[in-house]
């Protein structure tokens, strides 16, 4: 049993699109990543990069076309029936939209207890279940009074806490957080991020934290992976990736995000054009249509992995990585 909780190797997933004939929408094109116990992996990328598809596949809402997934040594996609049901307890999700992810006609208590209706063996009696729900409500900072209230009576941040409590109901090992704070107000974002932090310290859960907000990811993630058009184009320890980006896209993302501290910043990198359609990804390196360093080789050959000389876990796929032989090449 390896020390990694989750190992994904070369996962691919395409969707057929109604009006595109034979062409398929390539959502995931060879994803490889690892997640250790108790660790937070940040997943960063813009719309269309495939991070939602990745989340859904890891939750087994979609089946990958090829590639392998190993969760604690087991391949979850080979499980059936009762084993599959038992496995589902180990990976749960916190959704982005606190308004759409809760059924408005169920009380908070019902929502949190819903997972147990499919796993009847866990808490047998009504009283046991209620006690556990109240325990979870306390754990996420909502208090027992929230038990009988409907989602409309809560604010966005409180609803997100209900979502987190629901995700915790089955005692999972991994929680996938899909933009959990994007829809929340700033003051509430901080509260929820602190909560997620505390829960990880207390319960030892691993997180896969998907977000487009780089400052948030920097705050919560141990390691980060940057996605573009279905591939992970850079990954490594958070500090290394953010402070010394190796891939031009990562550098452009860092540069584009507005910064609060207004220190003297280098000239902002403005990328040309827009993200190409996943139906028709560019040949060779996918980023070449917008990259200011692109040359002929980028169109013909898939880019190799370029490892950061100063941090071994930090790698990017690029023909012309920004970090060359230990020096930060000029952008």
């Amino acid at each position, binding site marked *: 049993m390896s020390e990694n909780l989750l190992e994904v190797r070369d996962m691919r997933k395409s969707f057929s699109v109604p009006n595109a004939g034979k062409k398929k929408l390539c959502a995931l094109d060879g994803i490889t990543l690892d997640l250790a116990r108790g660790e937070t992996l940040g997943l960063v990328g813009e719309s269309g990069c495939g991070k939602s598809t990745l989340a859904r596949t890891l939750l087994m809402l979609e089946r990958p076309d090829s590639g392998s997934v190993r969760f604690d040594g087991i391949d979850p996609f080979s499980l059936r029936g009762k084993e*599959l049901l038992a496995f589902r307890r180990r990976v749960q999700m916190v959704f982005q939209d606190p308004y759409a992810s809760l059924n408005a006609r169920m009380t908070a208590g019902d929502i949190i207890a*819903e997972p147990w209706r*499919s796993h009847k063996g866990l808490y047998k009696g009504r009283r046991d279940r209620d006690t556990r729900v109240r325990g979870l409500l306390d754990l996420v*900072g909502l208090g027992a009074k929230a038990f009988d*209230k409907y989602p409309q*009576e809560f604010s966005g941040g409180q609803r997100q806490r209900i979502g987190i409590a629901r995700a915790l109901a089955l005692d999972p090992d991994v929680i996938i957080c899909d933009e959990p704070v994007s829809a929340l107000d700033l003051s509430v974002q901080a509260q929820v991020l602190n*909560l997620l932090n505390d829960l990880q310290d207390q319960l030892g859960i691993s997180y896969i934290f998907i977000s487009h907000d780089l400052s948030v990811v920097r705050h919560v993630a141990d390691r980060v992976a940057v996605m573009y058009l279905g591939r992970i184009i850079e990954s490594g320890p958070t500090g290394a990736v953010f402070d010394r980006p190796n891939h031009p896209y990562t550098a452009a993302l860092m540069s584009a995000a507005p910064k609060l501290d207004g220190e003297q910043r280098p000239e902002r990198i403005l990328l040309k054009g827009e993200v190409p359609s996943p139906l028709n990804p560019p040949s060779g390196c996918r980023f070449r249509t917008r990259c200011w360093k692109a040359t002929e080789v980028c169109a013909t050959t898939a880019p190799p992995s370029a490892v950061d000389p100063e941090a071994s876990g930090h790698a990017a796929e690029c023909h012309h990585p920004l970090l060359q032989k230990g020096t930060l090449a000029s952008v």
Partner: protein
Amino acid sequence: MSTQLDLVPVKPTTAIVGEPETRKRSKWFRLLVNDRVAAAAAVVLGLVFLTGIIGPMVVGNLATHIDLDNSNQAPFTLAHGWANILGTDPLGRSMLARLIVACRTTLSVAVPAVMISAIVGSAIGMWAGYYRGWRETVAMRVADVIMSFPSLLLAVVVLYVFSPSAANIVLVLAITRIPVYLRTARAESAELQSRLFVDAARTFGASAQAIIWRHVVPVVLPTLLTVATLDFCYVMLAESSLSFLGIGIQPPDVSWGLMVSQGRTYLHTAWWLSFFPGLAIVITTVSATILAAWARIATDPGQRWRLTVPQKRLSRFTKTTKALA
């Protein structure tokens, strides 16, 4: 724990949406009362149902009491007794009494027909919408087949072949109305599949039936109720048409449609024979339609604000001059 919050639950901060869910019944009542036309329609409909339930007991056998001396008397005069205030029919029976008894018959055909078609149609629709794929295709084609028959013609054929009893009428009307519910329920169910809380339920391994029962049914129900209210009108009119054609309710039973039919030959001499039952049909269907329109707005949280604004303001968009004056 450092992230403990106050226990006070808070309404969402956008001011438009902010009604306390705890007082559910009074909320619906207030929404209804605010729309005066819908409230009136609800009262009328309530009276109709009340008449149908207890009316025949009150009226007794006045409806069947034949009095040939009093045949075809004009309405709006008390000269022949209070019971004949709406006139009498060729056999001297009180129009008022017959109307009341006919109310029960008409409702006892329309209501079961609507309920059967609603339950069967929505169940199949929700099931088809959940699974999609071939189940959806088959269900939709079956609905298409039923819809492509002119329903009244189908009813005529069926009732001609089998005898026109009340049960058969209910059955035929129910079957021809199934597609309406099937298509509505399928569409809503299919749309719900992409909702996040359904995905969440799938992630903890909920089975198809569990998801349909827990999540799809409560969301689809308001739409179905609105459709059912409108459908009620249609079924009433269909039953009236069938009785008018002579293959619906058979005498000595009486329904509004049958009364209209029987009064046809006397239109020039005794207009009230067809007029009052016709009026009863119109009043009931119009009330039901108005209530359905109200229900459509009231059950949609996004549109509900229209019922909180006094009617005349809806037509004007900038009222700043008036407010500041």
